[in-house]
């Protein structure tokens, strides 16, 4: 039972972090960034730099954890900010659909860039191997990594919530997310707010890539895709633009996946995701606006 709870929390953590990364950017510029998953993959491969060889880990991968983690977060943030400057800034006034397609295109560019350098064969990496030791908590055995994933996610969510509520940047971001034009009229620096949102979102992608890399022990150019899909669904269920909703829905999706895995009869388990998506459809039928309705869409009372 406890085991199921921890599994649900750790899978939910991944989805919540991914959903938050998407919701942050959607909030300030109404862009659903489908390149987010590829930023995750790119960050994993940063462990192999500057080598493209399958086994040699010569630089980043050998750093101690307290350097490695900030490095990967910075890589994610850097790529994300770069994509804002090079690509999305030019689409600032375009329709959401145009921006979304641009994000697909950017995703392909990043993925095929990785493909060119590293080939499509998954690379084996040994990232923070100490984390795979089992630990026992309240009678449930789990890898240390799972515990750290859950704790790190809680810390990150808490830090982000303090950041958004208590700092000047967070204040500007909340105002811009609700009414970008009005915030701009009042002198809020639009470019800084948007670049900050991209940087945070990219750093979250970096965090996911560390967790995924440590969990699977591989670097694969496809690895961001699955998380990205679930994270996107979580942002929709959560109510697009709502940060709290994205996190909540991320954890709910994680829980739904793990619970289905446990309660479904063994013959049905391969179709677990179909059941999860079915549940998603049900939720959206009853609450098409998402669990926590998005900014600016509330009815005026």
């Amino acid at each position: 039972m406890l085991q199921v709870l921890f599994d649900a929390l750790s899978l939910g953590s991944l989805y919540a972090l991914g959903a938050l990364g998407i919701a942050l950017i959607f909030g300030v510029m109404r862009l659903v960034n489908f390149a987010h998953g590829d930023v995750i993959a790119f960050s994993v491969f940063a462990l192999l730099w500057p080598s493209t060889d399958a086994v040699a880990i010569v630089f980043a991968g050998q750093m101690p954890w307290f350097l490695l983690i900030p490095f990967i977060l910075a890589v994610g943030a850097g790529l994300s900010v770069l994509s804002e400057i090079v690509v999305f800034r030019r689409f600032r006034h375009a329709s959401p659909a145009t921006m979304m397609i641009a994000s697909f295109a950017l995703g392909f560019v990043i993925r095929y860039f990785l493909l060119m350098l590293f080939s499509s064969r998954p690379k084996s990496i040994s990232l923070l191997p100490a984390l795979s030791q089992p630990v026992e908590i309240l009678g449930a055995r789990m890898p240390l990594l799972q515990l750290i994933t859950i704790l790190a996610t809680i810390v990150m969510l808490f830090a982000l919530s303090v950041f958004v509520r208590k700092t000047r940047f967070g204040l500007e971001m909340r105002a811009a997310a609700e009414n970008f034009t009005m915030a701009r009229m009042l002198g809020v620096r639009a470019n800084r707010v948007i670049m900050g949102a991209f940087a945070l979102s990219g750093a979250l992608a970096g965090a996911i890539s560390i967790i995924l890399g440590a969990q699977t022990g591989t670097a694969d150019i496809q690895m961001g895709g699955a998380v990205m899909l679930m994270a996107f669904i979580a942002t929709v269920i959560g109510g697009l633009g709502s940060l709290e909703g994205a996190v909540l829905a991320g954890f709910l999706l994680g829980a739904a996946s793990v619970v289905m895995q446990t309660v479904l009869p063994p013959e049905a388990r391969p179709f677990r995701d179909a059941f999860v998506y079915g549940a998603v459809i049900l939720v959206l039928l009853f609450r098409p606006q998402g669990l926590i309705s998005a900014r600016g869409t509330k009815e005026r009372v």
Partner: protein
Amino acid sequence: MSQLEADNISVAFAGLKALSEVRLSVTPGHVTGLIGPNGAGKTTLVNVLTGFQAPTEGAVKLDGESLVGLAPHQVRRRGIARTFQGGRLFRELPVIDNLEVTGVGLGLSRRAAIAEAQAMLDWVGIAPLADRIAGTLPYTDERRVAIGRALMGRPGYILLDEPAAGMSAPEAAELAALIRRIASELNCGVLLIEHNVGLVLETCDHIVVLDSGAVIEDGPPEQIRASETVRHAYMGTAADSTLPVLEVMQ
């Protein structure tokens, strides 16, 4: 003399003249009223004065210096603030944050912005509402928050776009007192755009009447009250909502 001035402003939208050769000035410590039937061009003029709309001809001048070409936030930094019809607050944010973000946008440090926001809420008389979510307020309070937000950074001029819309008579009277205080205590120049002509006649030192984009009358309240041209302009529109106005003016 220090003043905010619309100097011969014309605005044309696709050939249609929204404003033609409008002259108006606002001076510190005085309340100037801007009235006129629906579609007279009142909000267009406010938009021009605050940089939201470029004039086709003419210029907006602050102490004789042209502001044409400045973006709205740059005009705001020069000390010309405005409110919008319906308030247009950040409805998801607490009241205090609505003011604070404006202070930060004006270049204050966060600490200074919070202090100023608290002082301003206090001054406007809504200090107890600081932590309420703006979208949950009744509209009378919402208007006060909008005015408090516009007063952040102590602007030299404030343009109020229909602040009394939908208010009852006692509510409008309270608002009138606040508007007088903005002029007298903060030595701010106020431009009051209102449909409630009674409120304007009672609050303003000077009134400009617009009709079809042109100034048809300009003078102190007594002159406006007595003006045949103004009566005719309001009569001409024949909208039911303006009929009580005529009684007020009698």
